[in-house]
């Protein structure tokens, strides 16, 4: 982080850099927020719809005293055909001190970082990474389960299209967790295992859930299926998390979901509100983690 100050992904961060961010997030959670970013301008550049990530970045920035401006693809010159690079240069010229970007193209934040001199924070790019989600997931796990080393984390569902999975895998692997990915071949290609030696792949949810410490369920990203036809009935039968299946996990296992959740699809509705679910806590923690990331990337510490 000290090198670039942009946060493009978790793949290239060290365990120490991640630990530092998580500790800072914990400080943000415990202490009354200080105006570390007073007078700073943060552009929230959103090419894709978002509820959680956008509002949480906005609240995080405001809690630290920064101004924010939201630029969305449909209500800006992007609609008129302005390129990503030109949009970024415009925001920089307008005095933005940092750009938080959400984009459907993998690598879009890298394009901005290559062309601008202000820090770029990746708020989710295509199927690549969602680093602040990876951080908030680890933060949430650590509130309940310590240490990450040896923790059995499983992720079930649409792995192929998930930037959350990639960020989580990079982070968890650096801390020695054991990771099991589970899903049908169309949504979980064998090459997924090349992401990290810590990964195991299984096609059977029962096998994946057995003895898990953390069960992370994923939404099927219908906006990214690109023509892929999926038998929904069969998917539910094979991969939906049910109470019965969750019982195979360790007692006290955490149930996580990055949202948005489709109740009755990847997860039985009651489970989402059950005592093992930390879905809302994940959302809350997102604010602290993003405060830590903004403060660090903007050099306010």
């Amino acid at each position, binding site marked *: 982080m000290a090198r670039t100050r942009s946060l493009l992904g978790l*793949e290239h961060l060290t365990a120490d850099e991640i630990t530092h961010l998580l500790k800072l997030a914990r400080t943000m959670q415990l202490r009354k927020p200080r105006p570390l970013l007073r007078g700073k301008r943060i552009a929230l550049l959103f090419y894709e719809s978002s509820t959680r990530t956008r509002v949480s970045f906005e609240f995080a920035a405001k809690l630290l005293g920064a101004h924010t401006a939201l630029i969305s693809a449909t209500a800006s010159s992007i609609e008129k055909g302005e*390129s*990503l*690079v030109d949009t970024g240069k415009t925001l920089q010229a307008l005095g933005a001190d940092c750009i938080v970007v959400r*984009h459907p*193209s*993998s*690598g*879009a934040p*890298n*394009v901005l970082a290559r*062309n601008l001199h202000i820090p770029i924070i990746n708020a989710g*790019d*295509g*199927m*690549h*990474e969602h680093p602040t989600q990876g951080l908030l997931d680890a933060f949430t796990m650590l509130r309940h389960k310590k240490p990450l080393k040896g923790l059995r984390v499983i992720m079930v569902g649409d792995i*192929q299209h998930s*930037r959350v999975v*990639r960020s989580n895998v990079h982070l968890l692997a650096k801390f020695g967790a054991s990771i099991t990915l589970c899903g049908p071949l169309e949504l979980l*290609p064998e*090459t*997924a295992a*090349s*992401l990290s030696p810590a990964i195991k792949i299984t096609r059977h949810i029962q096998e994946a859930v057995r003895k898990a410490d953390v069960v992370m369920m994923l939404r099927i990203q219908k906006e990214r299926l*690109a*023509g892929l036809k999926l038998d929904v009935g069969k998917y539910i039968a094979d991969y939906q998390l049910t109470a019965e299946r969750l019982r195979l996990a360790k007692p006290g296992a955490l149930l996580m979901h990055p949202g948005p959740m489709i109740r009755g699809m990847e997860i039985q509705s009651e489970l989402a509100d059950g005592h093992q679910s930390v879905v809302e806590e994940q959302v809350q923690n997102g604010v602290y983690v993003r405060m830590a990331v903004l403060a660090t990337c903007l050099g306010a510490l």
Partner: protein
Amino acid sequence: MARQTLSIRNGFLIDPAQRLEGKYDFLLKDGRVAELAPAGKLRGRADETINARGMVVCPGLIDIHVHLREPGQQHKESIATGTRSAAAGGFTSVCCMPNTLPVNDTPEITRWMLDPAREASVNVFPVGAATVGSMGRTLTDFAALKRAGAVAISDDGKPILEESIMRQALMGAGRLGIPVIQHAEDTRCTESAVMNAGPTAFRLGLRGWPTEAESAVVERDIQLAAETKGHYHVAHLSTAAALKAVRKAKRERLRVTCEITPHHFAMTDEDVGEYNTNCKMNPPLRSAFDRETLIAGLSDGSIDCIATDHAPHAANEKNQEFDRAPFGITGLETALGLAISILHAKHKIPLRRIVELMSANPARVMGLTGRGTLAVGSQADVTIFDPAKKWTYHAQQALSKSKNSPFDEWQLQGKVLAAVVGGSLKFSA
């Protein structure tokens, strides 16, 4: 054509078509090779002399796959700039693909490309479109295209997928004795794919391109080549699976040839790194296994040619999200350096074979008579290079109008010193 006579002396000749290697002198006159003699034994006198001591002299290099972008996209390249770039890369002839705007699907456009007003620095041989507008539906008039100067037929940039169209194209071109060049890509399995399927694509969250998208088309086409006896040429072959099919076809003595690009023997999909759009091309960079298999194919003769697929794009077009950036890279000025650095210096492939891959075979595949050799009477197209010279390629200094090369700042071995086209010096370093 040059009125003057030019002699090239003291160089080391490599001319695989004549099976000649050694110290020879040449006299070039009226656009032809007038005399060839052991060093110091030339009888004729020349107005001008190039001293090529310590250099390799070979028949002019021929790139059978370039995109000159004219007509229609002169912000990327023109026939004038593209051919200057070619000369700087040691190429004295290029075959330009028909995916211009409009598509080169008529004799008028072919003739327009060949008009001296285009100010080409090297010989240009247009490839005519196989179908009208390269839309894959109606065949063009091959005979008329050939009469206008087209040397082959292709819908390059797009594949000819419809089996009946491919069969008719092979028959029609076969009757005229010219090849059908296929861009082998089953676009039904590459929709929205932007790089080779594999670990790097997964890591970057980019949509992957299966190798079967190429090999399935090549296998289908080879069947059709067997049926029709036409000459089938695979453009920019990139996979081990497709090469296997070509090898089998050659064993069966079918009229099947293929080319590969320098970038496919120089790099792998891992080089995409962190979304380097100058490593985005079609077909994409492949796995290390594919690359090694292609190098073996270059060495053992199952690959006929090296061709660059020179595909210039403006800087702003490449400076985009990876999935939005256009496919293609420039290649004319780095091809020989890459071939010598990687194939010769590293993989010990003899220079003779490299000259064969870049001159003799391309002439044979495209039916360019009198080229690809320096036998007396042949065209006075000559390339002179220093096979030992190390140099650094700076993309910004390229003569091509576009600078989209992944080889920027690469250290290369083997430098072009001169390109003589039709007896006239068109480039000298």
